[in-house]
């Protein structure tokens, strides 16, 4: 199909050798000369007035270099609504509020000093569910907004909606209508490498911060503002991103601990490291938002969808991170998963005294795909149509313009659904009330997904810059601002540079993300890493090739001539000149596998010139030059109007379907996934190993979301802050076979036709499992996770109804 040299080939990750050898340096492994260790004193109340903070004992502890509170440091605001503060003054609004911090010679002394800080509180009544927070007279989490204006409710000032089509008419046109309410829990991203940073200020007040971030350039902006707040106006903030032990959305905001490290470094004049341990990560790092969703969907007598109503109530916790903007992504499946003529979407985001939440992989999409796809399954039953058939009937098609005005360039949804049906033996298995040898009920279920596959424009610029420099030895040094957090961006980018430039992957060197060296990038989110990096690389390498070929005439012939003369020493110079030919035009030259050739010359060794030789020849001469190129790629997409819910937010859309077979033990309520088929329209496979890793990993997270994971809290306190009580899937839970099907639809906007694939793996897993449980035992689980207790309770309720 293609004559690519490297795209689509099985190839190991470029960073794997260092990672298996333990040579990769994470924030945990980094140290700086004179570095101090910081620790944070967190609040002991979910909602309380701070009466007094006594730091005197902590300050006297030997080894302590600084103890800071909001009362003796400049005010540093955090978050895009500026409703959060690095250190809290007057009032705490959640149990993890930062009230003081210590820098000391080692982590043990810092920890001991934190214990010596005494804080006097006046407890206030709190609100711990969005419903309670909306009651008249509910305590206000924030009495004033960021500008000091009084607030009258706990509703966060972010508006998202979408209302298209004639809802009333379509309701009337519906033969079948199904309504349901669903809840999804707060869950932890549980990066294996916990959060941390090192902040260091030079003598001029310029900051370098090694940060576990996915948004080095937006972080640079936040940190620059923090420096200004500290009186260091005009100082530079440089963000260096070490190897990330996982990201999953935790790096989409700057965090209070980072700003506190900067304050401590400023106070002490020494570098300060703050590193969370696992218990801190669980209790004090923001989880995925929880949501309650009401869905109503209808279809006509043939099963064609008529309308969809989705209303979301989201528990924001005490402060606002980018994660609060989940509805911006919820709109994507709400408006555009299947063809729906009339759509109504409303989202309400509410402050509570729970821990504030942040982004996690999928960013709102799994929260609404579970309700929509669970509800759709019930609609199919109501209509008496096979759920797979109903989905195929309503599947989006290439060329569609969705209600949100997505221009759907490529769409393999129907192919994905078809593949799932075939590979799962759907027609033989669905609705057959089968049992396995252990007497467990068996069932199959399917769910689909749509996600942004061509980046997702949620910011004024959705761009990514790249700078590529060729050295004298033919190696390409690539500075790219996107972040490798495990997903395999390095694999895709390496292949794209090698393929599009015409060198070998081994000659491509990706530099660590560093705002001082890399062009701007909006951040690594929205499954955009490979799509953006490879698109930028294709364009930058085109510039490099053009420049190279413009320099080739004469230089190439000289080098080739020398080689020919050497190979055939008896040839006269005139014959050599004649065989090599006169200097050509730029378009006569080619570069492939790091060899420059010229059209019309025979395929002989002398006529294949090492790129490095050309580079040195044009460098080391009178008026010499070196080759480098920069490109800033902006995808062809629009920033949606969020209140109207209209705008083509992505340059491409990724589609997929998952089918699962489950066994349900009716005695215990335990659900076991027996097999899964995952079909994904990826546009084009860039790097099979990285792609499979992304999908398998997504499925594991989807499985955890479906069956196991939930942050339990009471009065705002996290009750399960460790892996003992918070279970993520292990190799044992992932023991079922997974069939991967990659549909290649060759998107015109995709680099080599590829679309983004970072998040989709986890999106449809929970509803597919819920639908399979429904098929197996006849009960619908409306709440995640679908634990044995909940399955048993649903079975009990169903049997009571039947009696």
């Amino acid at each position, binding site marked *: 199909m293609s004559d690519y040299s490297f795209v689509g080939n099985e190839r*190991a*990750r470029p*960073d*794997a*050798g*260092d*990672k*298996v*050898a*333990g*040579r*990769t*340096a*994470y924030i*945990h*492994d980094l140290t700086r000369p004179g570095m101090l260790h910081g620790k944070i004193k967190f609040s002991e109340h979910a909602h309380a007035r701070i009466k007094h903070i006594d730091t005197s004992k902590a300050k006297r502890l030997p080894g302590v270099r600084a103890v800071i509170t909001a009362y003796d440091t400049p005010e540093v605001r955090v978050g895009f609504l500026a409703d959060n503060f690095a250190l809290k003054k007057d009032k705490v609004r959640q149990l993890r509020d930062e009230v003081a911090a210590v820098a000391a010679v080692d982590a043990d002394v810092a920890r001991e000093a934190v214990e010596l800080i005494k804080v006097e509180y006046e407890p206030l009544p709190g609100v711990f569910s969005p419903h309670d927070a909306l009651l008249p007279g509910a305590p206000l989490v924030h009495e004033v907004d960021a500008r000091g204006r009084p607030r009258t409710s706990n509703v966060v000032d972010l508006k998202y909606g979408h209302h298209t089509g004639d809802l009333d008419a379509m309701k009337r046109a519906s033969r079948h209508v199904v309504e349901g309410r669903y809840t999804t829990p707060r869950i932890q*991203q*549980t*990066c*294996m*490498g*916990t959060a941390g940073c090192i902040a260091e200020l030079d003598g001029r007040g310029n900051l370098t911060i090694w940060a576990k971030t996915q948004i080095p350039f937006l972080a640079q902006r936040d940190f620059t503002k923090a420096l200004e707040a500290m009186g260091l106006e005009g100082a530079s903030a440089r963000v260096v991103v070490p*190897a*990330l*032990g*996982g*990201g*999953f959305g935790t790096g989409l905001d700057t965090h209070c601990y980072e700003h506190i490290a900067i304050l401590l470094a400023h106070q002490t004049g020494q570098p300060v490291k703050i590193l969370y*341990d*696992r*218990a801190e990560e669980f209790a004090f790092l923001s989880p995925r938002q929880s949501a309650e969703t009401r869905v109503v969907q209808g279809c006509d007598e043939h099963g064609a969808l008529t309308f969809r109503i989705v209303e979301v109530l989201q528990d924001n916790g005490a402060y606002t991170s980018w994660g609060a903007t989940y509805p911006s992504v919820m709109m994507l499946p709400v408006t555009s998963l299947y063809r729906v003529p009339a759509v109504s979407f409303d989202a309400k985001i509410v402050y509570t005294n729970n821990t504030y939440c942040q982004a996690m992989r999928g960013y709102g999409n799994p929260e609404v795909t579970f309700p929509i796809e669970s509800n759709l399954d019930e609609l199919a039953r109501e209509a008496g149509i096979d759920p797979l058939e109903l989905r195929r009937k309503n599947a989006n098609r290439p060329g569609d313009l969705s209600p949100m005005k997505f221009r759907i360039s490529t769409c393999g949804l129907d192919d994905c659904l078809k593949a799932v049906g075939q590979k799962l033996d759907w027609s033989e298995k669905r609705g057959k009330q089968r049992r396995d040898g252990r007497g467990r009920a068996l069932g199959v279920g399917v769910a689909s997904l749509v996600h942004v596959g061509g980046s997702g424009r949620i910011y004024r610029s959705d761009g990514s810059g790249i700078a590529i420099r060729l050295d004298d030895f033919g190696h390409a040094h690539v500075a790219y601002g996107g972040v490798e*957090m*495990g*997903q*395999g961006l390095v694999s895709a980018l390496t292949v794209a540079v090698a393929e599009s430039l015409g060198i070998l992957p081994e000659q491509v060197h990706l530099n660590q993300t560093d705002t001082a060296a890399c062009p701007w990038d909006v951040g690594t989110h929205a499954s955009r890493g490979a799509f953006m990096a490879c698109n930028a690389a294709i364009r930058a390498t085109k510039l490099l090739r053009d420049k190279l070929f413009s320099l080739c005439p004469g230089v190439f012939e000289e080098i080739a001539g020398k080689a020919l003369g050497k190979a055939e020493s008896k040839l006269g110079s005139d014959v050599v000149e004649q065989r090599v030919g006169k200097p050509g035009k730029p378009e006569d030259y080619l570069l492939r596998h790091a060899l420059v050739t010229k059209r019309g010359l025979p395929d002989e060794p002398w006529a294949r010139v090492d790129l490095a030789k050309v580079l040195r020849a044009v460098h080391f001469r009178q008026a010499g030059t070196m080759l480098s190129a920069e490109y800033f790629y902006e995808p062809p997409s629009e920033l949606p109007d969020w209140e109207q819910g209209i705008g083509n937010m992505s340059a491409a859309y990724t589609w997929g379907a998952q089918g699962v077979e489950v066994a349900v033990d009716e005695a215990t309520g335990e659900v076991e996934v027996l097999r899964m088929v995952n079909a994904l329209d990826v546009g084009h496979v860039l790097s099979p*190993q*990285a792609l*499979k*890793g992304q*999908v*398998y*990993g*997504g*499925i*594991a*997270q989807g499985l955890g979301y479906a069956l196991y994971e939930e942050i339990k809290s009471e009065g705002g306190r996290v009750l399960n802050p*460790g*892996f*003992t009580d918070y279970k*993520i*899937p*292990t*190799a*044992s839970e*992932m*023991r079922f076979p*997974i069939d991967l099907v990659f549909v290649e639809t060759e998107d015109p906007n995709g680099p080599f036709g590829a679309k983004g694939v970072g998040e989709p793996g986890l999106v449809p897993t929970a509803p597919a499992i819920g639908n399979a449980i429904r098929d197996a035992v006849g009960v619908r689980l409306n709440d995640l996770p679908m634990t044995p207790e909940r399955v048993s309770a649903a079975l009990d309720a169903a049997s009571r109804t039947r009696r």
Partner: protein
Amino acid sequence: MRAELRFTLNGAAVETFVRPQARLLDVLRDTLGATGTKEGCSEGECGACTVIVDGRAVAACLFPALEAEGRTVVTVEGLRQDDGEPSEVQRAFIDKGGVQCGFCTPGMVMAATALLAENPAPTDDEIRAGLVGNLCRCTGYVQIVDAVKQAADELARKERP
């Protein structure tokens, strides 16, 4: 208060002084600079700090440093073969894509190494059971299990005359 500790680390004798309550993980990472071993949870639940002590995989975050006295400890840094090549297990993790963010990888590689030393031809279920104490949030374990299978095959091939 410091106690003397002598043990063998990756084939070399080590002599150092440690606090009596120090964990083996602290000594490896902070005292000896062997940062390949990672700290993921500090309570023996995640396996990121897995090292091999006298042939057995242990969680270095729970292992008192003084318990290592006189023993042989192997960390991920010690798997490199004499010719500088990675071990069969490391090679297989590279080839099969058992590596993503890489934070669990050293522990996972050590657990797999210990597993194959004990059971050179494990079934898929035995591999999964052997790695159940090592958490990974990126890979879904599929390509890790593939890697352990490849390593087992490769080691068996090498054993044959």
